[in-house]
């Protein structure tokens, strides 16, 4: 009796272990990183679901006139942001009011969008799909289009053992793909793991970074994921007050979600409205242009001072956040073998 119980336990153990190995390969928490915010138990990853999500991410079928995909605004070669435009372009060349943020390490985020309008990664895709300036479609119709497609019948069946697309399954698959977009192999990361060394210049830049920037752009994600006011003057055309739109609380005026600085070499233009093209402009903002409005973050009340050598050093450090293995990861690329056109 005792023996058989042990055996059952052992078999169960093997079973779970086997599962964990699969999970680890699809998503893993880098050493010394915090626990992800995303609840994987509600949406367990599988290779087939991730693939379905990736195809959906790249397929313009999600837009009303079949012209725009998620990747149109979030391109992999630019850390999943929209490069040449400061304000993202959608269908009929309509211009949205915000710059698309770089997509990475989203499993750790609790709120999405510059103002945190979206409370869960699964629900994120609904916003661009329904936005008249972005994809101009609605999820009911998207699901109908998917159910009319032989390709998607196969992909949904492979993922869910059910060829019927639903809103839930569609959104969860897109989440799965986005969850795999983990960037944790920059030079900075290998220095932290002890397999590489900073140059003198980078080392000095890292010290300056910790002194002036890391209160908000906290390691290892390079964002504390909070809403802060970093002293940008308001654009009087766009009149974007950020977080206040969501909470309707005046103390949230001009607060925006702190963006990650990982891969910032490729994620220009910068800020919620893409007002800065170059890193140099960003540093000029922090050293000279910070607006002292009442809501300005306390971390920036005393102006940041950086002479030109310090600026060069800080820039050198920021460039160690580039992660080539992320930017050129085949698993994130256009699924050519499945989406034939283009």
């Amino acid at each position, binding site marked *: 009796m005792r023996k*058989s119980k042990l*055996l*059952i336990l052992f*078999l169960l153990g093997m079973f779970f272990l086997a599962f964990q190995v699969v999970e680890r390969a699809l998503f893993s928490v880098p050493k010394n990183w915090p626990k992800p915010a995303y*609840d994987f138990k*509600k*949406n367990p990853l599988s290779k087939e679901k991730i693939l379905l999500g990736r195809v959906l991410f790249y397929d313009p079928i999600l837009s009303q006139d079949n012209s725009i995909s998620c990747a149109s605004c979030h391109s992999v070669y630019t850390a999943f942001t929209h490069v040449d435009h400061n304000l993202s372009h959608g269908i009929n060349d309509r211009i949205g009011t915000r710059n698309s943020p770089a997509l990475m390490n989203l499993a750790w985020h609790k709120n999405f969008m510059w103002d945190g*309008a*979206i*409370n*869960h*990664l*699964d*629900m994120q895709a*609904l*916003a661009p*799909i*329904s*936005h008249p300036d972005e994809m101009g479609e*609605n*999820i*009911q119709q998207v*699901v109908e289009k998917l159910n009319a497609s032989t390709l998607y019948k196969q992909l949904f069946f492979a993922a869910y053992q059910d060829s019927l697309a*639903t*809103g*839930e*399954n569609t*959104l*969860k698959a897109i*989440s799965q793909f986005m969850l795999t977009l983990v960037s944790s192999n920059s030079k900075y990361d290998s220095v932290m793991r002890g397999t590489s060394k900073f140059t003198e210049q980078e080392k000095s830049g890292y010290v300056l970074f910790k002194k002036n920037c890391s209160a908000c752009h906290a390691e290892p994600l390079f964002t504390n994921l909070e809403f802060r006011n970093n002293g940008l003057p308001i654009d009087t055309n766009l009149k974007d007050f950020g977080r206040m739109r*969501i909470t*309707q609380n005046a103390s949230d005026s001009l607060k925006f979600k702190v963006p990650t600085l990982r891969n910032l070499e490729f994620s220009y233009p910068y800020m919620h409205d893409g007002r800065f093209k170059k890193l140099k402009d960003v540093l000029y903002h922090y050293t000279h242009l910070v607006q002292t409005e009442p809501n300005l973050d306390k971390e920036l009340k005393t102006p940041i001072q950086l002479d030109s050598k310090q600026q060069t050093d800080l820039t050198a450090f920021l460039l160690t956040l580039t992660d080539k293995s992320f930017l050129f990861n085949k698993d994130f690329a256009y699924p050519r073998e499945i989406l034939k056109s283009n």
Partner: protein
Amino acid sequence: MYWVQTKFRVVMLLFFALTSSVSIAQVTTQISIFPRWHDQSLQANTWLPLVQTDSIQITQLRFYVSNLSLFYKGRKVWSEPNSFHLLDLLEPSSFNLSLQLPQNIEYDALQFNVGIDSATSVSGAMGGDLDPTKGMYWTWQSGYINFKLEALTARQNQELVYHIGGYQAPYNTLQEIQVRFEPNSDAKIYLQLDKFFEDMDCSKINHVMSPNASAMQLARLLPNLFLIGK
């Protein structure tokens, strides 16, 4: 190896036998909500008298009923697992709620929420009546629309759009409703929609489409609409 499997099977069989014997003791009970306009049953897309001088047509009435539970003498005796129901005036059968109750249960009050609680609102994509394809999920900002009412008025020729939702303070619009009835009588619950327009001036508040103070004001009217019918 084989005997381990058989043993395991026996255990599983026992387990299923136990759980299914529990479900045998359950009975399906219908609790229905009757949408009403004054003393008539409410019809969509027909003119109805509004206050003294105007008439109104209800074009959409959809709302969530969730977290159903039954009480007896002030004590909770049953609550529905995974309890989310989307009621839609254009689909009358959605107003009949089939509850799986234990046999011989006694109850004298029904409690439910109109809307979706905040924990569920932040739990990501869900299926069934909560699937975002049901048209009850906001897209530009996360959250369910708890109560959706759209209508037209004749004289002022005005479109009324009330999408009442919001799950976060200070605009948490979820409403808890409790109706009491004679013990185990055939309960008829009325949704008296005319009362919604009694305590609110629809020429002043005519579009509510996000969580805000007006949504809160309208949400507070909802508990008064649910009454025990005669």
